[in-house]
């Protein structure tokens, strides 16, 4: 573990390997100025939907408030629906239906549907790891040094962890102030934080003997425990804060995807002919995250138009939460603009 951290640290700072205390960033003071440890702040600084800054993993579940897209979706024409988003003109390439295609056909939902007998926490853990591995396939492309020592995503190309004009994500420094970091550093710190969680067998247990199953009132007679002392994954040995950790991980992964789309869709993914792969992994990610309540509708904001498009073009089936969260009018407008309506 310390190898992993210090390896990254060395790469990042050019310093000698220094073991990093594997403390929880929630309880410990985040230290960003020496690159040791920090945690992501949960909300984007410039997001219209919120003003408060707080620590993600401490957040109580937010009430399901209607998202911006839904509110807009109630009224107006498709054109107005799309214009309500703060999008640059001309529109980004990735919103063009011709470039929003996939390498997979069929219903993605079958990939993330929990088998009925499987305990929810076990399934969530599985999804976290799979999506993390997928996302990292793409990050690696923009993060690995070229022969001249440069990475595609660097402090010059991406001085901030941005996702479009209105979103720039910050970290909390040791005085709990949000600070801006180049995307490369933000993502590096975030990756270290996530892998620290995933590799911690107290949070993600791996012993085969510790498994459980889901309750079914029709079949299982075991007392159905509900109440304050029951949590997702409890019976399978996951800790009390497991689900909120997973929510934070998904939120952070979402931000990375958002950065990849807004800052790197053409350079390099489109140039490298990887845009369909990226689309497929991201749409699978959104379907999973929404279906398992790992992302809330308002958290989808920077990528909302693409989600609308995928709902309108059938990538997201009508029975999915992602579809429910989409603004079909805006999606239809994008299809229309792309000559596909």
């Amino acid at each position, binding site marked *: 573990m310390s190898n992993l951290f210090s390896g990254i640290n060395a790469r990042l700072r050019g310093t000698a390997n220094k073991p990093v205390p594997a403390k929880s960033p929630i309880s410990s003071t985040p230290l960003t100025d020496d690159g040791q440890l920090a945690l992501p702040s949960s909300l984007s600084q410039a997001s219209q939907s919120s003003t408060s800054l707080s620590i993600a993993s401490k957040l109580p579940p937010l009430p399901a408030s209607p998202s911006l897209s839904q509110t807009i979706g109630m009224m107006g024409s498709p054109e107005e629906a799309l214009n309500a988003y703060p999008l640059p003109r*001309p529109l980004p390439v990735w919103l063009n239906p011709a470039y929003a295609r996939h390498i997979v056909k069929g219903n993605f939902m079958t990939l993330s549907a929990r088998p009925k007998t499987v305990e929810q926490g076990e399934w969530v853990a599985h999804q976290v790891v799979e999506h*993390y591995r997928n996302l990292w396939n793409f990050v690696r492309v923009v993060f690995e040094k070229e022969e001249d020592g440069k990475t595609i995503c660097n402090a010059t190309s991406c001085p901030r962890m941005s996702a479009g004009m209105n979103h720039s994500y910050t970290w909390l420094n040791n005085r709990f102030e949000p600070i801006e970091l180049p995307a490369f550093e933000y993502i590096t710190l975030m990756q270290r934080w996530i892998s620290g969680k995933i590799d911690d067998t107290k949070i993600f247990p791996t012993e085969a003997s510790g498994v459980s199953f889901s309750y079914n009132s029709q079949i299982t007679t075991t007392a159905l425990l509900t109440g304050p002392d029951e949590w997702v994954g409890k019976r399978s040995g996951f800790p009390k804060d497991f689900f909120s950790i997973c929510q934070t991980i998904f939120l952070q992964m979402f931000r990375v995807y958002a950065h990849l789309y807004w800052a790197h869709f053409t350079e390099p993914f489109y140039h490298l002919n990887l845009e369909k792969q990226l689309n497929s992994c991201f749409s699978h990610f959104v379907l999973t995250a929404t279906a398992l309540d790992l992302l809330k509708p308002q958290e989808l904001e920077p990528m909302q138009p693409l989600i609308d498009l995928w709902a309108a073009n059938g990538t997201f089936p009508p029975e999915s939460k992602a579809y429910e969260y989409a603004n079909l009018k805006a999606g239809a407008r994008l299809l229309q603009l792309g000559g596909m309506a």
Partner: protein
Amino acid sequence: MSEGEFAPPPTPNIESYGPNAVYNRERCYQLAQGFFKDAVRRARERHERQKELKLRLESPELLSRRELIWSHSGKLEAKYLRFLRTKEELSNYAIVKTIGKGYFGEVKLVRKRQDGRVYALKRLFKSEMISKEQLPRVRAERDALAESDSEWVVKLFTTFQDNVSLYMLMEFLPGGDLMSVLIKYQIFSEDITRFYTAEIIMAIEAIHNLGYIHRDIKPDNILLDRGGHIKLADFGLSKGFRKDHEKSYYQELLQRPVPPSSRPQNNRHSVNIDEISLTVSNRAQINEWRRSRRLMAYSSVGTPDYIAPELFSTNGYSFEIDWWSLGTIIYECLVGWPPFAAETFYDTYRKIINWPHTLLFPDDIQLSYNAVHLIRSMINAPDARLGRNGAAEIKNHPFFAGVDFSSLRRIRAPFEPPLTSDVDTSAFPVDDLPQEGDGEEEGGPAPGGGGDASGGGLLLGAEDPEMFLPFLGYTFKRFEKSYTA
């Protein structure tokens, strides 16, 4: 309207990127492709299991056991999910003994430390695979075994890798291989030959139905399970209809310079080579051949004895090459040595391409008309070979009159391995193989130390051995139905 237009997509320009980006592009491409292929397969299998579960839950006879069925299913699925999340490494296994060896790697009997289960672990060295250009071979074997779910094919549970090696964790087949049985008994009766041949037909048919040509059907690749029934192994040369398997292995073999020892002029006795081994009076020579055949199996060239002639030509070949190989095995079971046995690779090769003249039956061994007829129809030109229209025409040959192919696995096999424990290796040539240490505790870093990436997290950068392009997508994990709760 102009406000609604999309930014014009640039012309894709991969050339503007450096070699590392291009390399990473390829990795990313393959991993994404591989993820979905794997995820779809897993979802489909999961769906099948859920359907089966539903049927069992609805069955009136099982009413009293419904809770157990439900919880068992949940736990089994969960164990599989944990298996997927975690990283396999050599140190998870205690090595019991080396039981087999091929040119590229070795096969060991191992015990999983976590649950005490016994497996066969095949290890291939990455450096060898690269320097000897065996990558398509590695890939072919992994794919064929991962994709098949047949009782006739050795089951692959998982594949994993570290910096040095690739590993294939398979079910351990305690009966050894057919080569050992042949070495032990020298000759089979027609009844026993009929049994093994019928089972091998089923096995070859099963892999052909999956779209694979085995290309290396020979006695040391036919293994016996605990009941003495056969399973095919060693798909290293198998050819599926995938681009990454393409490589004319034998073509290459023949283009290599002939080693001096196998050059005909160096071999004075080879003048009459076509006539050797044709009588039982040549026992000494046959035994010599038998003794050397194990060693042959360990050598780079392998034995060409079972290879169909069209594999040596450039004109292409198809599924029927496996039926030729079976023909040579039937001959060997009945006669005691394969039909084109010779002292050197080169002489055997010469005999095979001259098969119309060199396929001879010894006078002093009594064979039935049907047996000879069957062999001659399989050791035959590709366009006339029995089996070219499918396995059914072989099954209908009079040699198999009365055989019920569908129930073969339910009848008792002629030789049932007498096993004394779950790690009984008496069917294997363990004494001929180098055994490191005294069983237990060999190889692999100590648990927790020196491992590569741990858990589900991935290292950032190229240090993760799984991220090395040639072996990308090698890692595979099968759902294990027989997990004990």
